């Protein structure tokens, strides 16, 4: 179908993405389960972390043997980085590992909440953008910070729905809506989704995409949940584009009164 409303690609920094569901690759039982869940999710962007190679176990497998970089956009993250220096170092290492200039930038501010250190985030983003990176920043649901990230050259912003891995769903829909209205780069809701309705809601609000990991990997059946999320994101996107009815306090009859006996 030429005007299939699900087929409007998401464009970030000139790159076209087919899927509006992006997924992380952590916390799965094994690489095979990871592969199957990604397949079921329909995602074409997958996030990965960069870590020391296990040099003692020569048989340890490589994630990229299961996720074909030709088929998926590999988005390295700086998860676990608590300082600007570390986030910049990990970003450079990720680029050196040869995937691309894309980085999902995280500068974490606190171990319990894993909330972003937004001051550090902005500083790290500036450094990396100057080095030619395409910086997709994991940020708080703060419209002012989102605006600043856009102003310094981030081609998308990734505000959280709730703390990473919490499954609490969208805690501040109004802030997210304000972000969507005020920035003119794609908004990708990242982190905190618990189940399909959370993802659908994010898309109904007008998010350009949703990124999740734990909600899928931590489900009893990750592959089935990946599929559920795919439908949810599609349903939410369609509902957003279709335009919902306004909320009213009282009933409006759907059947005509005319012609009644």
């Amino acid at each position: 179908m030429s005007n299939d409303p699900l087929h409007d690609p998401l464009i970030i920094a000139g790159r076209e993405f087919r899927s509006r569901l992006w997924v992380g690759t952590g916390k799965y039982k094994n690489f095979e389960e990871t592969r199957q869940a990604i397949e079921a999710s329909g995602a074409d962007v997958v996030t990965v972390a960069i870590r020391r190679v296990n040099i003692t176990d020569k048989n340890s497998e490589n994630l990229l043997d299961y996720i074909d970089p030709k088929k998926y956009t590999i988005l390295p993250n700086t998860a676990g980085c608590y300082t600007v220096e570390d986030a910049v170092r990990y970003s450079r290492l990720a680029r050196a590992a040869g995937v691309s200039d894309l980085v999902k930038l995280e500068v974490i501010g606190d171990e319990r909440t894993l909330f972003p250190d937004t001051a550090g985030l902005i500083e790290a983003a500036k450094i990396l953008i100057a080095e030619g990176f395409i910086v997709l920043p994991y940020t708080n649901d703060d419209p002012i910070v989102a605006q600043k990230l856009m102003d310094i050259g981030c081609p998308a912003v990734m505000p959280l729905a709730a703390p990473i891995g919490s499954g609490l769903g969208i805690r501040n829909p109004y802030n997210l809506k304000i972000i969507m209205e005020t920035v003119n780069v794609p908004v990708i809701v990242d982190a905190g989704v618990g189940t399909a309705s959370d993802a659908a809601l994010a898309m109904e609000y007008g998010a350009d995409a949703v990124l999740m990991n734990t909600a899928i990997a931590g489900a009893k059946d990750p592959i089935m949940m990946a599929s559920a999320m795919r439908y949810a994101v599609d349903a939410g996107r369609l509902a957003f584009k279709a335009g919902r009815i306004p909320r009213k306090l009282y009933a409006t009859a759907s059947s005509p009164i005319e012609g009644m006996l």
Partner: protein
Amino acid sequence: MKIIVNGEEQEHNIPLTVANLLQVLDLRTEKVAVEVNLKILDRSDFPTLNLQEGDKVEILSFIGGGSPQRRHVRGRKRYE
């Protein structure tokens, strides 16, 4: 020659380039990033850079990740 690879001390009896080291460790060069003494190398440097006594080598690659499961940096440094 003693070098430190991913935090572990290693003894090598022959001169090694980074490419040689990766070969010894049975690692495919196209999937790793290498840092020597905090300097990130271009892949084209792998065959030419000779490792020296005491060099600290870090070899990294991509693993599953979406959100941090544990804190990676040791001895937390605050952002200043």
